[in-house]
């Protein structure tokens, strides 16, 4: 009896570890559906809607090759890739994740294989490491706000503006600023950690978020939905590609690249060491870096030029500053954020800020 109870407790205790099921959120298929000559399995964190055009273009350029795409959350994707690395999970041919620190860790742990081509050789040093992981997109970390609810005079252009809005004791922004839940989102953690390395603003921001009970929640789509619906007035550190895509259809949504500095993310692609068709995956990587691939990625805002982001701003001086851009380079330095203790400390700080009731208002 007692033994059974202990077993039950053990099972319950083990439960949280396996909380996130290792399965894609959505899947899609491109190219021939019946009897393809080759088929490629791509796993990525990018929403299918944004990634479909480029995959479709690839399938068209490579007749006979079928491409299956699985959309994953960044943390489960990393977990699956790490397991696949030791043969405990079915392997993909290409992994593309916005959580580039996790991608770098996969490379560092020997879970990827090199791919050599003229296209990857042309990549700048920041966007390639060991010829095994390649930065394929350029996406800024932005703030978004709802122009119908935030008067032009209060519209934030930088982190300092945001701090000013949150400073008054009874700020109407209290409780209505949203950002990623860094525990649920690998990308949110990466952005937050990069912020903490960039400037002292981060400390003040965290403190202000805590004081005003800002909301940490999951996923770009939900956060942007919340801003459009007016539940949140401002969202911080949202991925620019999603924001710009939504802003194109929702005129009330304003995308702001912070003028103090703007983090620039390059989604990273890697070919797992056990990939079944590394040559096919390499071909896809080359396509993503080719002019045709760049065009398709630009069309869905996965590649954003600096002028594009600064031009959208009301009071911005329009494209002055590539110097404001802080690219996140693909290098082993990213491993620091993933260190067990470092991460634990960072998350402890985060939890202290957002309280135990880190509610996630997920609306479907």
């Amino acid at each position, binding site marked *: 009896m007692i033994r059974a109870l202990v077993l039950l407790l053990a099972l319950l205790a083990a439960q949280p570890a396996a909380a996130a099921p290792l399965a894609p959120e959505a899947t899609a298929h491109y190219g021939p559906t019946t009897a393809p000559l080759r088929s490629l399995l791509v796993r990525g964190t990018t929403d299918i809607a944004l990634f479909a055009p480029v995959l479709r273009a690839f399938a068209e350029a490579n007749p006979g090759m079928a491409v299956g795409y699985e959309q994953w959350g960044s943390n489960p994707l990393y977990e699956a890739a790490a397991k696949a690395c030791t043969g405990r999970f079915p392997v993909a041919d290409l992994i593309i994740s916005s959580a580039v620190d996790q991608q770098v860790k996969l*490379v*560092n*742990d*020997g879970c990827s294989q090199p791919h050599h081509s003229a296209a990857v050789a042309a990549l700048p*040093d920041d966007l390639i*490491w*060991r010829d095994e992981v390649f930065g394929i997109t350029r996406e800024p970390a932005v703030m978004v706000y709802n122009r119908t609810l935030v008067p032009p005079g209060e519209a934030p252009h930088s982190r300092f503006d945001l701090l000013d809005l949150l400073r008054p004791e009874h700020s109407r922004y209290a409780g209505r600023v949203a950002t990623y839940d860094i525990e649920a989102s690998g990308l949110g953690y990466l952005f937050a950690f990069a912020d903490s*390395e960039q400037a002292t603003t981060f400390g003040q921001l965290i403190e202000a978020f805590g004081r005003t009970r800002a909301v940490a929640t999951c996923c770009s789509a939900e956060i942007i939905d919340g801003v459009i619906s007016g539940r949140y007035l401002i969202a911080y550190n949202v991925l620019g590609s999603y924001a710009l895509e939504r802003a194109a259809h929702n005129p009330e949504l304003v995308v702001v690249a912070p003028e103090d500095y703007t983090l620039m993310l390059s989604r990273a692609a890697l070919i797992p060491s056990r990939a079944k068709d590394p040559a096919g995956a390499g071909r896809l990587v080359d396509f993503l870096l080719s002019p045709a691939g760049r065009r398709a990625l630009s069309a869905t805002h996965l590649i954003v030029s600096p002028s594009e982001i600064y031009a959208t701003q009301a009071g911005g001086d329009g494209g002055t500053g590539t110097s404001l851009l802080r690219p996140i380079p693909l*290098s*082993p*330095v990213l*491993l*620091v954020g993933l*260190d*067990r*203790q*470092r991460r634990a*400390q960072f998350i402890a700080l985060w939890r202290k800020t957002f309280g135990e009731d880190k509610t996630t208002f997920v609306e479907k």
Partner: protein
Amino acid sequence: MSPIPDPAPRALSLAARLAATLAAVLALGGLAVALAAFAYGRHAAQESYDRLLIGAANQIAGSITIRDGAPLVELPVAAFQLLSLAPQDRITYAVFGPDGAVITGYDSVRSPPKGETFYNGRFTGEPIRLVQVHRRFAERHFSGTVTVVVGQTTRSRAELAWQITRGALTAAGLAWLVICLLAVFAVRSSLRPLRRIERALGARAAQDLTPISVAVPAEIGSLVATLNRFIARLDRQVATMRTLIADTSHQLRTPIAALRVQAELAAEEQDPDRLRGILARIHDRAAGLGRLTDQLLNHALIIHRADAAALDRIDLRTVAIRAAEETDHDLFSTGAELELDLPEEAVPCLGDTLSLVEATKNLAGNALRYGRAPVRLFVRATPAGPEIGTADRGPGIPEAHWPDAATRYARKTGVSPKSAGLGLAIAAAVARAHGGTLAFARPAAGGFEAAILLPPPGGRR
């Protein structure tokens, strides 16, 4: 003149020989340089990247604080930036508590071996270089040693080592090329004097036997000196021949003319008694002519021998004995006896026995013929060198004639039936060929001495 055959079997050309030697030296040197460069490159690369490694490990160790009685590692970004100076290398790390448990980092890192700061290992299929750094804590709630291990794959090291090696080899290769060019230049320029000698000899007139006077470096100087000695010998022999021919024709002309006159007289003489007397004179003349011819040929032979024969190590006393045995006393009118005056000890010298015996015989003949008894044939060992010669009690040659005595009598005295007057010339030629001299003296005790003074067997007189 018949065509000159290929002068000597052709040995490997000097240039080829030098090239081969140089190539061997350079190849060995190149190998040594390559090995040294590789070793140095490896060492330098190892050392540089080891510094990065230990720098990063020290930074990590420095970031450890004790919080709530447990070590807390705030992994510094700077440490990883330092490590990413090896841009292509993967990193592994772990921080171990005093109990050996991993506080943070890779669980796959094994606890480090004792006593070695740097060591090698493997990290998911690649070789890595690891470093361990220790930090001791003695806090209120925590005391013990925390160990930081940082490892990195070795791609950048290998690349740097190769770069250094390549750089060194490139430099060595350039040096090699320069040395080769210099060597070619040196060979050419050092062979140039030989060409000059060749040209100088080629341009000479057939009769020109003067020494070569071409400016040459010291190394070839001895060759030129040898060549010059050879030319000098040739010159001497040619001169000797010329003298000999002149002497011979001069000396033979007179007796042959006398013979012809006697023969003409005999042809016209009717009186058998007088005819018999003329015939007797003709016989005497013919005999004298025969001796003269002998002596002339002897002279030529001896002179040739003296210049050509190799000198042996001989005892001068045996020369004296042989000369005394071969001297025909009856030929000399004085009837004097030849006394041998020899030392007890052997008198060694470098010489040609045959020509020395001949020369001595001539001296003895002169002494017996013109001197006054007692006539001595002596051999002496003096500090200046061995001597062989004759002494008698007569007045000898007048002192005024000593300097040209050797040639004087051959020319001036003409010929007599008994002697051709070549004795002194032969003795002087032999003495010269032995590096010695023919000397005359009047001893304090009186009389006259003629002697061949030879150099000591070890060196020059």
